């Protein structure tokens, strides 16, 4: 007699696996491998550690402000700290002006002729008194001579100016960042300029003969007081040269001289000083390299004015957050290894068969893995950069360097962007690892795709054009998310990636990496479904 026993039945409810369970399973796989968790923490630690290593020895060269007459070497350097303009951005506000007070509305008209250039001799590290004064040289493309209405003598005050430039014709510029192009004009032929103030509106006009006028543009300055300083000004920005061996750009002080005719005035001009005009060296020469031979001398019934400096956005004098984010490269390599091993480890140990038995729909496994590794990498990248950026900037400032101010919004974009960057790269490594099933191949491919182009873009002898293309079409475009400084067409500068200028905007750069990651995921999904595990 045998007793029949009922076969075992699980008490768990029958049903399909949900995506939540799958996600939980993949998270458990990650969480319970102690080496991987330690590696993720190590990645974050390395990023923060290199924020320190990348900044503690950093000293920018500074500007030579005190020549040593005896030895010809620079006696003292200054670390520039530019004033902030009306919009809160760092600006250059250094020029030579001959002006008087205007109360209410008025018009000033003047003839400008012969804009010529001065170039400082020596270099920033060895400069004699004669070197600092400057010698006749090429006029800078953005050397400026013209008429200005300025809200006051405080650095970074609102202004509007109509000017003749070295090679960019007549322009109307206002509040440092705005630039309106007028007709093309030669720097050698005489040009008539007129600036009209009516309330808060300023209109710039120019003429080739002093009788037929064309309007260059209109500027509205919201914060312009009734009483303003108005007159003639001359300035000339430092010339920037690429330094292929040191990387980045170096600059050399320049000056410009212009001859003005007698200004014709109409409106509420105050009598002012004897003769009516006050000559002033405006701005801080410690902010931007300048030649020392600036000044104003009477020339006929007008003035010959020599100025140096710049009037516009400040470019290339400070450090950016890229130094604080040095460690992201190290963190990336660690997370690439982690991302690739998250799948190739399963193939090597044979766990993949269990995984696919539990979840036969393989595409879902890939998505669950991608979400888990992306979340881990995002947290590592965002948390580490949230610590690195303030830490690195603090060290830079402590060492006397000037760091460009960034808004809270920009800092947030930098932190979240770095998180997204490392998350997308980790998923890219996972996808490539899925397709190749080999850890070594996947790690090499992803490093060669993202780190190598960045390296070739600035550390090799590639010309600027080829470097820019590398940062447009490879996943390394995503490093643009770390850009915190803006490019201005009205400032000649060597805008190189190593100075923190990228060819793409942060969002587009991340999108390029996103496209690579998406393509890799689609290929991995296809390969996964059509191949034996």
């Amino acid at each position, binding site marked *: 007699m045998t007793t029949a026993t009922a076969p075992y039945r699980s008490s768990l409810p029958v049903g399909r696996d949900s995506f939540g369970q799958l996600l939980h399973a993949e998270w458990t796989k990650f969480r319970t491998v102690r080496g991987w968790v330690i590696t993720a923490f190590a990645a974050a630690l390395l990023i923060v550690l290199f924020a320190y290593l*990348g900044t503690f020895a950093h000293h920018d060269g500074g500007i030579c402000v005190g020549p040593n007459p005896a030895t010809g070497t620079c006696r003292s350097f200054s670390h520039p700290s530019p004033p902030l303009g009306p919009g809160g951005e760092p600006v250059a506000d250094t020029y030579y002006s001959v002006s008087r007070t205007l109360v209410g509305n008025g018009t000033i008209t003047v003839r400008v002729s012969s804009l010529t250039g001065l170039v400082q001799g020596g270099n920033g590290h060895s400069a004699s008194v004669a070197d600092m004064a400057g010698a006749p040289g090429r006029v800078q493309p953005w050397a400026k001579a013209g008429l200005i209405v300025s809200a006051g003598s405080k650095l970074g005050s609102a202004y509007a100016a109509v000017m003749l430039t070295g090679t960019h014709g007549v322009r109307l510029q206002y509040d440092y960042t705005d630039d309106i192009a007028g007709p093309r004009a030669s720097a050698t032929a005489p040009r008539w300029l007129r600036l009209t103030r009516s309330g808060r509106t300023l209109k710039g006009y120019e003429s080739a003969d002093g009788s037929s006028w064309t309007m260059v543009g209109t500027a509205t300055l919201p914060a312009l007081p009734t009483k303003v300083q108005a007159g003639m000004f001359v300035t000339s920005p430092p010339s920037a040269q690429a330094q292929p061996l040191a990387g980045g750009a170096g600059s050399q002080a320049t000056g410009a001289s212009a001859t003005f005719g007698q200004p014709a005035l109409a409106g509420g001009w105050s009598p002012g000083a004897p003769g009516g005009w006050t000559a002033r060296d405006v701005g801080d020469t410690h902010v931007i390299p300048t030649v020392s031979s600036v000044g104003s001398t009477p020339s006929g019934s007008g003035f010959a004015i020599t100025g140096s400096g710049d009037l516009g956005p400040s470019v290339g004098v400070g450090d950016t957050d890229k130094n604080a984010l040095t460690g992201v490269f190290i963190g990336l390599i660690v997370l690439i290894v982690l991302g690739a*091993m998250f799948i190739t480890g399963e193939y090597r140990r044979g766990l993949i068969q269990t995984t696919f038995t539990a979840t036969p729909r393989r595409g879902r496994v890939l998505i669950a893995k991608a979400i888990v590794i992306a979340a881990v990498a995002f947290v590592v990248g965002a948390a580490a950069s949230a610590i690195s950026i303030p830490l690195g900037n603090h060290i830079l400032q402590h060492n006397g360097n000037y760091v460009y101010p960034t808004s809270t919004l920009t800092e947030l974009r930098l932190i979240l962007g770095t998180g997204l960057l490392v998350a997308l790269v980790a998923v890219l490594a996972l996808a490539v690892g899925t397709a190749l099933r080999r*850890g070594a191949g996947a*790690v*090499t491919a992803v490093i060669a795709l993202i*780190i190598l182009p960045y390296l070739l873009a600035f550390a090799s002898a*590639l010309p*600027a054009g080829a470097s820019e293309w590398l940062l447009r079409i490879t996943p390394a475009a995503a490093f643009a998310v770390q850009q915190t400084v803006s490019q201005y067409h009205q400032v000649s500068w060597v805008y190189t990636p190593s100075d923190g200028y990228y060819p793409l905007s942060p969002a587009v750069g991340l999108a390029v990496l996103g496209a690579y990651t998406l393509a890799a995921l689609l290929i991995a999904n296809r390969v996964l479904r059509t191949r034996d595990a």
Partner: protein
Amino acid sequence: MSRALHAEWTKQRTVAGPAWLLLATIALTVALSVIVTLATTYASSAAAQDLPRLSLTGVYLGQAIVAILAVMTITDEYSSRMIQITLCAIPARPTMLAAKAAIVTALVLVAGTVAVLGCMLAGRLILPAGGFTAAHGYAPVSLGDGATLRAAFGSVLYLALIGLLSLGIGTAVRDSAVAIGLVLGLLYLFPIVAHLVGSQHLERHLEQIGPMTAGLAIQATTNLRALPIAPWAGLGVLAAWAAASLLAGGVLLKLRNA
């Protein structure tokens, strides 16, 4: 030793992987050099160009494939448990590692020579079309020039030393993904970090000790004074890295259970 060499040679010869990796080394090295020489024109370069060095840019990428080949030579044995059979057959572990090192070196020397000759040929054919002609003061890239010959021969040696460095790290770490991450981190991160530290003094020191930055000094043919380290001294630094990594790998191999 000769039996160990024969065994290692058979292993490399009878699987498809190494042959493909060697072909990939040649193809990718030459391909990057072709792209770079095409992209660089006389009109677009701000400063004087070092043509042989420019032609050899492909080595930046080729070394990554050499690193895979060398790392896999040992880590593949660990992942497939082949290492236990290997060590039963050759119980003297240093001999086994030396045999692997010899075979990797020989393979990389052959592939490296082909790749470097391809790069030089690309430079010779493409660069004059980009304006680097005698009229602009540039002689065509030629192995007849002493410095160029040193750059080309040194690049082949450079690749072989990268192979040895990778083999040592692979032996020490035993996992291919981690080992390759370490090797490429060591190679690529030195120049990036050196560039970002922003202190010229520290930058120069980092470039003197980095395996890639020091080793690739061998490719320079002009403006040697501006180099952080002299060409042969730089290759010596890389050789020291390779020796140290092989030593570390060898000691760990001897001390650990397989």
